[in-house]
């Protein structure tokens, strides 16, 4: 049968290819590269070692140690609807870097070709002439103004950052956080830990102690960042935890759109990832933060996968500040993630769009917090949860209207879709309203894939899995539309891949 015959009327080639490719996890391969590890386990010594490896100033080490001492006293939270396995924090590596990164390469040309090849294989453009990759059909799109600057993090270190000069011309600082600690200590000192304090929660505190790298962004007042910024996280080494820390500061009247992607090799043993993202948004500034989280989800029997414990928070400090979180969560064996908005400035706005897909034995407990402190603040939450196989998927969120947040508004919509009778879909919203000029509305529904819709597709010759993918894509449309183009296309095919094997 020729390719042409294969493509039926009404089904575009992309859909068919997507379904044909619905094999396994695409990014499950491993890069063979010589690594250098810190000894296994966590202790003050390890914290000192990580700090020394990054050549950090004394104040940074002190900050880490303070966090570490607190963390030792803390207990792992158990309130999420997750069956958490015992995690032995002494049985993993907290620092792993490719040997070739021992002396930091001055430019991308000096970076180990193996590392560059890794990112090329992942479709991440580390050469500036490669404008956009990882997007099928990209060649048909006018890309003249779709450049993306990338910070690539490999296990514990940042491999390189592209377009630094071009961004510098605009006054935008985009570099790894280890570099920022050295080059821009005043900015880091001023903002680090002010959105997610060292004492915030078990995983954030752990991150404060042992974070090894991550991205740093500063957009100066009145600047529209000339291109999208993105960080790509890759876990490669075995038994290694990744603890990255991202700090984004968007000064008065500035704008930046930020993309985050992540993958890891297929392994039998689970791996820990505990990240922190802090975003500071000043008066009239706007940040869009989009994530496609595609960590290895574990195999069909629930073996392996990434345990993803992430603290993400944006602080709208000035009037009319605006933040938009968009996330597509398809990977990870366990997801524990609540990107939040603190709407401190009057008339500030927070938005949260989420698609969370859990298949096989995946467990996701994710949602957002909208804390309304300023007057006339607005927030909107659209969450689409999809459960298949034996997976459990929970939306957990908070909407809080403080007494002085007069005339504020929230609208929340959480929809869950169940595919199969072995999975679970749950909704746990917290709503706290402490003034009467604000309006809060929450709606949630749970349903299964509509039989009529499936029948319609099937009657037109669409295969069953394909039909489910179509219906699910329709279910997610509102969120997919909120994503930047590059991600929207990737996310759409991911939705199909993640549900592979969930029908019949």
């Amino acid at each position, binding site marked *: 049968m020729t390719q042409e015959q294969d493509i039926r009327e009404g089904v575009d080639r992309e859909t068919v290819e997507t379904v044909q490719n619905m094999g396994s996890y695409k990014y499950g391969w491993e890069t063979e590269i010589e690594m250098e590890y810190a000894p296994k386990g966590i202790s003050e010594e390890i914290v000192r070692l990580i700090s020394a490896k990054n050549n950090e100033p004394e104040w940074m080490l002190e900050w880490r140690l303070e966090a570490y001492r607190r963390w030792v006293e803390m207990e792992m939270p158990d309130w999420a609807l997750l069956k958490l396995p015992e995690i032995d924090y002494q049985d993993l590596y907290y620092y792993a870097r490719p040997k070739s990164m021992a002396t930091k390469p001055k430019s991308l040309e000096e970076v180990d070709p193996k590392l560059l090849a890794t990112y090329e294989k992942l479709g991440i453009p580390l050469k500036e002439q490669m404008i956009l990759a990882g997007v099928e059909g990209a060649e048909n799109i006018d890309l003249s103004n779709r450049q993306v600057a990338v910070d690539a993090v490999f296990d514990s270190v940042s491999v390189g950052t592209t377009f630094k000069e071009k961004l510098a011309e605009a006054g935008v600082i985009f570099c790894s956080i280890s570099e920022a600690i050295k080059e821009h200590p005043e900015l880091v000192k001023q903002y680090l830990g002010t959105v997610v304090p060292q004492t915030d929660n078990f995983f954030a505190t752990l991150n404060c102690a042992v974070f090894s790298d991550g991205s740093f962004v500063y957009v100066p007042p009145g600047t529209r960042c000339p291109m999208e910024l993105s960080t790509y996280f890759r876990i490669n080494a075995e038994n290694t935890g990744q603890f990255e820390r991202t700090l984004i500061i968007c000064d008065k009247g500035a704008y930046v759109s930020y993309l985050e992607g992540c993958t890891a090799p297929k392994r039998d043993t689970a791996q820990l990832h505990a990240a922190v993202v802090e975003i500071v948004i000043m008066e009239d500034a706007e940040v869009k933060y989009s994530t496609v989280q595609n960590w290895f989800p574990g195999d069909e029997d629930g073996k392996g996968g990434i345990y993803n414990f992430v603290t993400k928070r944006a602080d709208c400090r000035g009037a009319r500040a605006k933040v938009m979180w968009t996330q597509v969560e398809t990977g990870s064996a366990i997801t524990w993630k609540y990107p939040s908005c603190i709407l401190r400035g009057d008339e500030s706005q927070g938005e949260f769009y989420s698609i969370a897909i859990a298949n096989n034995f995946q467990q996701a407990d994710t949602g957002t917090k909208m804390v309304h402190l300023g007057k006339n603040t607005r927030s909107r939450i659209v969450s689409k949860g999809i459960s298949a196989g034996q997976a459990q998927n929970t939306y957990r969120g908070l909407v809080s209207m403080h007494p002085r947040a007069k005339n504020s508004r929230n609208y929340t919509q959480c929809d869950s879709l*169940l595919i199969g009778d072995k999975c679970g879909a*749950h*909704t746990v919203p917290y709503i*706290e309203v402490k003034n009467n000029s604000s309006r809060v509305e929450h709606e949630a529904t749970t349903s299964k894939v509509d039989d009529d819709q499936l029948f319609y597709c099937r009657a037109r010759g669409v295969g069953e899995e394909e039909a489910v993918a179509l219906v699910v894509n329709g279910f997610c449309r509102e969120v997919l539309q909120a994503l930047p183009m590059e991600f929207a296309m990737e996310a759409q095919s991911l939705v199909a891949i993640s549900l592979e094997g969930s029908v019949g």
Partner: protein
Amino acid sequence: MAAKEEAVAARLAGLTAGPGLAGPRAEARARLEVMGLPGRRDEYWRWTDPAALNGATPAAAKAAEDDEAPLFDALDRLKIVFVDGVFDAAASDDLTLAGVEIARLADKIPAWAEALYGTLEAAGQNPVKRPFAALNTAQATDGVLIRVTAKAEKPINLIYVHKSETSDPILHHLVHLEPGAELTLLETGPAGARFNKVMEVDVGSGASFHHIRAQGPDSECRAVTHIFARVAEKALFKSFTLTVNGALTRNEAVIEIIGNDAVAHVAGAALGDGATGPFLHDDTVFVTHQGLRCESRQVFKKVLKHGAIGTFQGKILVKPGAQKTDGYQISQSLLLDDDSQFLAKPELEIYADDVKCSHGSTTGAIDETALFYLRSRGVPEEEAKGLLVLSFLADAIDEIEDAGLKEDIVARLETWLARHRD
């Protein structure tokens, strides 16, 4: 002794349990000792401080001067009166009714009640602990034991009277409906300075149980009440609660739908005016679906002003295999001024795919457009607000099936609104 057990012992000191039921009472006490008394750190007490319920003695609460005619007075009903938790034989009717066997916990306990006592409460302790219910089972001094064998001739009205400023009654009622039986149970009045009540309701297949309760109007009283219901095949369970005033009211409903094609509705309307004393009203509802094709509804509305606080914690749990479940839950509050608060946690936990479950929750002020509309047609402002409040509460009140009972409840609401105009 562990700190938890010490706290429990201190709480129970001075309480004297009613006679009999040594086994279930000891088991309940053991449950309580394992759970301990609740604190603000407990997930289900994050918005309601249990301190006033944890103290060994209740805070003094005056009985309100009540010149209203007793609720449901015009209705032909069987009255059972408790004054500060003590059975008042003189004020009560003779405990005989066609289709029903009535006994008291403080009397000779029938075998069916021995078997049921504490079992639904114990089952309802998982996954959320309810320490005050275990305390009740261990310590209850009295209660009414109702076995319904056919259609009850008329409604039974439990009438509570509050006279003593320091009364601390603990009552435990059992209701057992045989297959096909029918009963309407009414509960009215404030029962004491601090009231702890548990009602276990076992609704047999095809039976129907209607429960209408009016709490208040004393503004200084505190109450913690639990309904544990087990609903069998094709049975109907409906419970409506009106709450006006009350320093602290925590009403928990734990409904387990075990049979197929059963229906369970729980509804509540609460009116709180902080000007006449603190008002905190907490509805904590947990509906579990185990049967096929069952329907559940939770409809809760609160109208709050002058610093009144309303809380709703509701859950629909659909167990694996409970296909074709239709679950609905709505919690809404109307904040009449800027000092009041509404705190809500409407939860869904679903383990079956062929279900239709939804929930909604809204909070806001009175609709200015609607108010303007009424004003422009010559309706005085306070009256217009009253109309809008009543229309806001309508969905909850509509859960009362009997038109006469509904009318009585609406009349009670209107009186309250008239008395609490700003």
